[in-house]
């Protein structure tokens, strides 16, 4: 009797220990939350973030559990969503739009033991880091292609809001284009929205009817590429590879890749080595990549792109290295120097070659 009882006790204790170990393992799974500004869809800003999320889930299989909420408008709604995620046990939360900055900071204060990463922001805190990609590196390279392929010397740019990030992209594109074609000029139309396919299409059509034969965009839908394909012009896609929508039109795409960053950050939280940092990575670190280049682009152009890319990677070339003139002809960067990160972050003027002026 006694031995049976003690075997039973032993078995029960083993079961308890096993249960504890299992729950401990389950409890060890890091819950990672993602707040998206727009629907994931087939392509675009949010789509790329979600690809990064999926890659992270795969790379850290068994160690992380993710959840995303899409279509969260900026403002008080965002604060509620971020807070709900934190409250529900998500210890690492990525907020993927500039407009989430203040809501993220507010919620971070309420949950000091959780970690927050805010995309494209500029305010750090004890438990808030920021991250952004050096889109302008890809823009410069794509500009080389656009400048080489244009026959009308007018390049079209469908842009969302006149913020430094967008202006930086326009400037880098222009510099790249004019490095191979000094006659190229860039026309910009502002649609005042990150995602509005109707307006993006209308803006693209307006650019094309005003002479642009290569268009690119800093907006979130596939409309510009679709329109270019329809009208028989070229396009440079942004965020995602959109060749599916413009097989003949797309010359290349400036792709955003978040898989490495998301994996690295989640691992850091798991290892308890996370630090609040302003992370700004580019081609070298694998956050920016050009999509496969359309075969119509001549080999010598591709060679120039490769050369520039290599220069960026090994640090011998910077897209914003001098001499650079602004629209009035004044030299803003001297030969032998290049713009610092700080100057890039606050960029609010056009370089020579961009038509029109920055909306005030």
């Amino acid at each position, binding site marked *: 009797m006694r031995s049976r009882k003690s075997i039973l006790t032993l078995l029960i204790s083993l079961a308890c220990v096993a249960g504890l170990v299992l729950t401990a393992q389950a409890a060890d799974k890091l819950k990672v939350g993602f707040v998206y500004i727009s629907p994931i869809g087939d392509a675009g800003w949010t789509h790329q973030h979600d690809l990064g999320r999926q890659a992270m889930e795969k790379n850290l299989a068994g160690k992380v559990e993710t959840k995303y909420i899409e279509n969260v408008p*900026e403002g008080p709604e965002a604060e509620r969503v971020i807070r709900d995620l934190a409250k529900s046990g998500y210890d690492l939360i990525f907020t993927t739009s500039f407009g989430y900055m203040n809501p993220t900071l507010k919620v971070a204060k309420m949950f000091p033991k959780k970690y927050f990463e805010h995309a494209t922001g500029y305010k750090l805190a004890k438990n808030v880091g920021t991250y952004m990609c050096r889109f302008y590196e890809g823009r410069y390279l794509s500009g080389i292609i656009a400048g080489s392929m244009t026959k009308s010397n007018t390049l079209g740019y469908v842009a969302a809001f006149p913020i430094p990030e967008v202006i930086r992209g326009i400037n880098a594109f222009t510099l790249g284009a004019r490095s191979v074609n000094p006659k190229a000029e860039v026309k910009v139309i502002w649609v*005042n929205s990150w995602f509005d396919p109707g307006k993006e299409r209308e803006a693209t059509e307006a650019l094309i009817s005003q002479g642009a034969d290569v268009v690119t965009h800093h907006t979130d839908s596939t409309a510009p590429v679709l329109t270019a394909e329809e009208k028989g012009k070229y396009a440079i896609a942004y965020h995602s590879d959109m060749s599916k929508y413009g097989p003949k039109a797309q010359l290349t795409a400036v792709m955003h890749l978040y898989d490495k960053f998301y994996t690295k950050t989640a691992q850091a939280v798991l290892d308890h080595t996370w630090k609040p940092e302003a992370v700004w990575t580019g081609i070298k670190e694998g956050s920016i990549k050009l999509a496969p280049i359309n075969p119509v682009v001549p080999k010598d152009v591709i060679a120039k792109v490769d050369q520039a890319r290599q220069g960026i990677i090994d640090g011998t070339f910077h897209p914003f290295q001098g001499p650079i003139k602004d629209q009035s002809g004044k030299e803003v960067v001297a030969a032998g120097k290049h713009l610092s990160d700080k100057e890039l972050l606050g960029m609010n003027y056009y370089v020579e070659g961009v038509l029109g002026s920055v909306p005030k």
Partner: protein
Amino acid sequence: MFVKIEPRPEPSRVMRYCSPLLAALLMLISGLVIFTLLGKDPGQAFYAFFVEPVNDLYGIGELFIKAAPLMLIGTGLAIGFRASIWNIGAEGQLTLGAICGGCVAIYFQHSDGWYVLPLMMLAGAAGGTFWAAIPAWLRTRFNANEILVSLMLNYVAILLLALLVHGPLRDPNGYGFPQSILFSDSAILPILFEGTRLHAGVLIALAGVFIGWILLEKSFIGYQIQVAGLARKAASYAGFKYTKLIWIGMLAGGLAAGIAGVVEISGPIGQLIDSISPGYGYAAIIVAFVGRLHPGGIFLSSLLMALLYLGGESGQMNLDLPSAVTGIFQGLLLFYLLAADFLIDYRLRWARPAREVA
């Protein structure tokens, strides 16, 4: 056997109170059906949508934050609706209120005075009232339909806000994003309870509902409005000037909406951005109707509407329910209410078809 529609000899008092409840019940039942069709467990979905958002103090605070603009605007609109004055422009009026209040906040950004908030409220009230005065004037002077004018002005107001936030009112240190500076503390509504976001604006909303109740139920103007809504000719025989009522009806809505707009930007938002309202001006119309144009009913229906908003978000978080479900529920609620209201003035009777006499 068929169903005959028969007018009641006098409107049913029972149905007058029951129809909102009936409508809410039908909406909930529809909700269970929708959840099931979506492949979710109806009980779980029901809990996530209707219970989970308010099961803690923070949640109740959120409920009142969402309900505050709705009950305030709803009350203001009800004053006009009772007299058949259809102010559809609440969305634009609240935008103008926010713009005016926001300008005051930006102007006084470096000051610490107690006077900043009250000044903002005044400015907001003035802005909303002004925006409602336009359709009121065009109606009384030119007989222009106030539904269409106030509706068009909604769009003008929203575009005006976008214009200002992209340009003159933009934060110079905001990296070019379309938003104003973050308001300083003197321009932010104080929080009432620690641990929630419940702010003083809720008190303002409650005060507004109370004032509206006094106006509608206890004052002579309220009486005039009621009569004018029921029987226009009788009202004019009694000497009630309809033009005066048009002004009061429109301006009440504008005033309420303007204040609600300032409350939004000095409360949860804390600055001027280009989209300050998820359609509160239109939702308030539903709130007014479901509340039977009575401030007490409006208070309750605003809480229900707020719950629908919160439920939509909670459903997205916990059940992967799409946020679009909220709009469906709101529309259904009003549909059912309008349908149930039918039973106030009419009743259904089973009747046999007349038989041929052999």
